[in-house]
């Protein structure tokens, strides 16, 4: 049987245990059925967890959402393991470790086979009306959270995605100039890679990075004259949290939009009035947030009363009490003005 590449991480274990696991892996690799590698990422096949650590809860939630990692409880005698997880007793012995890894290999192989069967055919999506093609296709792909690496070809721009990890796999950075071309593609081809092709991709040095920035850009740089098909035009929108502006391209007025939408739902017109920006910019922002799964749709008909009392009290920046002092600080520190 062909050997598979598997990844393993640790969650919540003390440093000494982590070091032990790392060195044990290199030793037992000649004796396990598959090839196991240590990874720092939560998106590994397996995670050795301390049931008492808060970080283990985070790993379990991630596993519930994406199917990975498979959590294993590392426990001393007398300590309770996580429910319905394999157990690795501490102190960790090589023989037990090998047995566990081989057992997990069987489980993982069974899962991969069923996924492969379901997604082996290439998926070609053609959009005739919808102008958000690539953005929506990527968003839906990531939402399906397949563990397999997917090859994306849109207008000749080719890259790879691991949906379950919300990750892009790039051999080299996506050219900024290529993005408009990418987002204008009339159709998108999505093809799952085989195990061998995946190994080759990693072998070529493809590095995973978060796909969030690309989804954001697909919304921000997509059509400004309309909302995404999934957003009702007459509705009010709120944000469930601030976008991570540290990693997302933005202008200053986007910060104000986020500040308003995290406090209260606004329609596009209300938002435009509140931030003194054209509706096009407001649509682009809401689209970007929607592709990033940050938007909550509130009232379907904005002709009704605004959903928040704050809307009435929203004061344009220039008349806000703090306008003077913040303007001074921004000016002195050299912020870019919007």
């Amino acid at each position, binding site marked *: 049987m062909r050997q598979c590449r598997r990844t393993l991480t640790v969650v919540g274990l003390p440093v000494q245990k982590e070091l032990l696991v790392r060195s044990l892996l290199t030793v037992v690799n000649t004796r396990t059925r598959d090839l196991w590698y240590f990874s*720092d*990422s*939560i998106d590994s096949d397996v995670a050795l967890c301390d049931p008492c*650590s*808060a*970080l283990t809860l*985070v*790993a379990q*939630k*991630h596993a519930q959402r994406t199917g990975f990692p498979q959590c294993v409880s590392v426990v001393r005698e007398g300590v309770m393991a996580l429910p319905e997880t394999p157990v690795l007793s501490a102190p960790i012995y090589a023989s037990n470790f090998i047995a566990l890894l081989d057992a997990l290999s069987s489980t993982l192989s069974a899962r991969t086979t069923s996924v492969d069967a379901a997604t082996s055919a290439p998926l070609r999506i053609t959009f005739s009306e919808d102008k958000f093609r690539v953005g929506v296709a990527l968003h839906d792909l990531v939402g399906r959270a397949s563990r397999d690496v997917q090859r994306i070809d849109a207008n000749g721009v080719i890259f790879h995605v691991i949906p379950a990890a919300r990750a892009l796999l790039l051999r080299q950075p996506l050219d900024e100039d290529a993005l408009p071309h990418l987002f204008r593609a009339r159709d998108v081809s999505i093809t799952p890679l085989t195990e061998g092709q995946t190994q080759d991709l990693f072998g070529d040095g493809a590095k995973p990075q*978060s796909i969030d920035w690309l989804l954001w850009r697909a919304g921000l740089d997509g059509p400004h004259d309309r909302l995404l098909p999934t957003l009702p035009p007459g509705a009010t929108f709120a944000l*469930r*949290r*601030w976008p*991570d*502006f*540290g*990693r997302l391209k933005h202008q*200053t007025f986007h*910060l*104000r939009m*986020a*500040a*308003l939408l*995290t*406090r209260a739902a606004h329609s596009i017109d209300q938002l435009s009035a509140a931030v003194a920006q054209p509706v096009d910019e407001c649509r682009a922002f809401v689209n970007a947030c929607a592709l990033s799964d940050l938007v909550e749709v509130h009232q379907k008909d904005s002709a009704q009363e605004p959903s928040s009392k704050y809307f009435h*009290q*929203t*004061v344009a*920046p220039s008349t*806000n*009490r*703090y*306008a003077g*002092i*913040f303007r*001074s*600080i*921004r*000016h*002195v*520190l*050299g*912020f870019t003005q919007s």
Partner: protein
Amino acid sequence: MSPREYKLIFTGSMGAGKTTAIAAISEIPPISTDVENTDKLSHAKATTTTAMDYGEVTLPEGHKLRLYGTPGQVRFDFMWKILGKNALGVVILIDNSRPDPLADLREYLAAFRSTVAASRAVIGIGRMDTHNLPSIDAFWSATTELGLTVPIISIDVRRRDHVLLLLDVLFHQIETANPIFEDSESGATT
């Protein structure tokens, strides 16, 4: 109008970059009260802040923006109270490479609860490039569980544009949350 003083607090765990953040924007070399760290098992850093970091920015018309960095460790929490009084806003910096960043965050949210609850706070998570968990969503849940709404962004404090972004987010949050306010509200002293 007589010159007014405004105070911004930078707080967060040891090594999260409070001193670096202040240095990025202060017009004076920051005054620091760093001393030798004798507890190297808990923290690898060579030094630790015991009292505060201080920087300042002179604004037009003689107004002053004072920047205070708090000590990160909980045994200096009396300094958090002292420094936090009448602050315009607080910047909470979290180092995601530490063992339990969510617990760290909860500590500072509790210490500066009144400022945070008045929507005068922003959270910057450092080292997310190499340590992607907990995620921004996990931090968001941690704040909303406490009934708080705080903008959270991932940052690298060594980048001046990221420090400015933190402040810009904070200012927008304050402006939006306090469109109409009474003269007696905290945030400025004459």
